[in-house]
């Protein structure tokens, strides 16, 4: 009897590159089971949302036109005339927001589980860089429809970059493609959004995933002391993978519901010579920083309140990213309460300031 087609293809490839190792590896891969196992799913969810962004992003590219005179009109055309254009754009916007949210949950769960500790410092670093890139994706993509809100958000955001000491003005001009936010900014942001960021992101993602495969899942410090006999695990293939896929399906449904019942609006076309509209706000994930800047006085001691705020956020972000290198206790397998308190303070601060920003 002839072998089925997929088997013949498998044999054909196997004869050339030996798939045996890979199959044994997958068969031996186990996911630890404990009361915090649920958090393992959020990395996968983030990955799924990224894939959705790539697919819908490519679809949007088929109709999007860059430029001050074309961008808004092309998105309008996409939403009004193209079959399911509204749906694709709505999914792209919703998935972008959920992507940041899932990334945040993933990041905080890794932080509180101290999964960044030796030997997983590089996994944490690549993850943090991807998170910052995700915010860059959000910020640059927000401008592309060239509407009023995006125009002012970009003005404010790039102006903030301008207050960085010494290089600020150069950074701002580099981002804007000139002194002001114009069509030149749109061209640059488009380039960042569809070429520069995806390229870097894919590279980081590759490293991140290879590291996760090589090192396996991290376990919380308190549970890690269990000896090998009492330790419970689940095979990655197919048990964990199927659960992963089920959750992806749920997320896909959630996006579909959000995109259909709460479609993303386009708003008014940007006018370079109009006043900023009332109630202008950045995307929710920038809101806590935006709100902080609102509370800072114009002058703080000898420096501008703005500069002070931005420097504090910059330093805090850097320290956060470098946590595996200064949290010595976790690396030695000891519990470190200070890290937990710091994390709780950070989460509380972000939540409270976001709510204040949302309601003000």
């Amino acid at each position, binding site marked *: 009897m002839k072998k089925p087609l997929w088997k013949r293809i498998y044999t054909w490839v196997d004869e050339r590159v030996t798939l045996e190792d890979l199959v044994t590896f997958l068969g031996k891969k186990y996911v630890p089971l404990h009361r915090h196992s649920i958090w393992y799913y959020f990395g996968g969810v983030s990955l799924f949302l990224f894939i959705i962004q790539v697919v819908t992003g490519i679809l949007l590219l088929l109709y999007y036109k860059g430029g001050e005179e074309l961008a808004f009109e092309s998105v309008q055309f996409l939403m009004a005339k193209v079959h399911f254009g509204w749906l694709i754009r709505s999914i792209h916007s919703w998935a972008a927001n959920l992507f940041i949210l899932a990334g945040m949950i993933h990041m905080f769960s890794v932080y509180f589980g101290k999964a960044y500790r030796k030997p997983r410092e590089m996994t944490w670093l690549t993850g943090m860089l991807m998170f910052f890139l995700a915010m860059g994706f959000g910020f640059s993509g927000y401008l592309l429809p060239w509407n009023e809100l995006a125009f002012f958000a970009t003005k404010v955001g790039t102006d903030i970059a301008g207050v960085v000491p010494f290089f600020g003005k150069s950074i701002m001009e580099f981002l*804007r493609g000139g002194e002001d936010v114009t069509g030149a900014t749109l061209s640059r942001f488009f380039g960042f959004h569809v070429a520069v960021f995806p390229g870097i992101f894919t590279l980081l993602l590759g490293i991140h995933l290879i590291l996760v495969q090589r090192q396996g899942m991290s376990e919380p410090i308190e549970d890690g002391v269990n000896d090998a006999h009492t330790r419970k695990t689940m095979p990655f293939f197919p048990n964990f993978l199927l659960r992963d896929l089920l959750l992806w399906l749920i997320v896909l449904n959630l996006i579909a519901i959000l995109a259909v019942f709460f479609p993303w609006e386009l708003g008014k076309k940007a006018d370079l*010579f109009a006043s900023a509209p009332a109630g202008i706000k950045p995307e929710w994930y920038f809101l806590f920083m935006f709100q902080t800047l609102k509370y800072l006085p114009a002058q703080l001691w000898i420096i501008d309140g703005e500069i002070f705020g931005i420097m504090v956020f910059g330093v805090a972000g850097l320290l956060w990213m470098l946590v595996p290198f200064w949290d010595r206790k976790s690396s030695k397998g000891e519990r470190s309460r200070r890290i937990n308190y710091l994390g709780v303070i950070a989460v509380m601060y972000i939540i409270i300031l976001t709510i204040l920003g949302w309601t003000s």
Partner: protein
Amino acid sequence: MNESMTAQTQEGKRGFLKFVLSGSLLALAGSIFYPIFAYLKPPKSGEVEVSSVKAGKVNEIEKDSGKIVKFGTKPVILLRTAGDELRAFSATCTHLDCTVQYKKEMGLIWCACHNGKYDMNGRNVSGPPPRPLDEYRVVVQGDEIIISKKA
């Protein structure tokens, strides 16, 4: 020639080669990165700097109102006060670059982005703006309003 002499010349030759090689690598890097960095910096636009603009007729702007006027590439806010005076200021908020508007109810110039407020003389009176708005000169010729930069 004894052995230490040979070692010395060898050392000298190696140092020379190191110098030449690293020097040329540096020159190579420079000749690659200088054009790239220069390319990233946008050129100054060739637009002529504007020193004055016509902002329409006096009867086109109501008492106790304001409007945004194009001043070259920058927005300027033209105000006609309740006391029937014409004033003009830069409309770019000194805080973070948003465009301000006249708020009738408050009798103030207001920025929607971060709730910055300026009085009718362009002075920053509340909120985060660090500096007052630059004032422009307003002249009425016939019934035409002309806004120009202050010297």
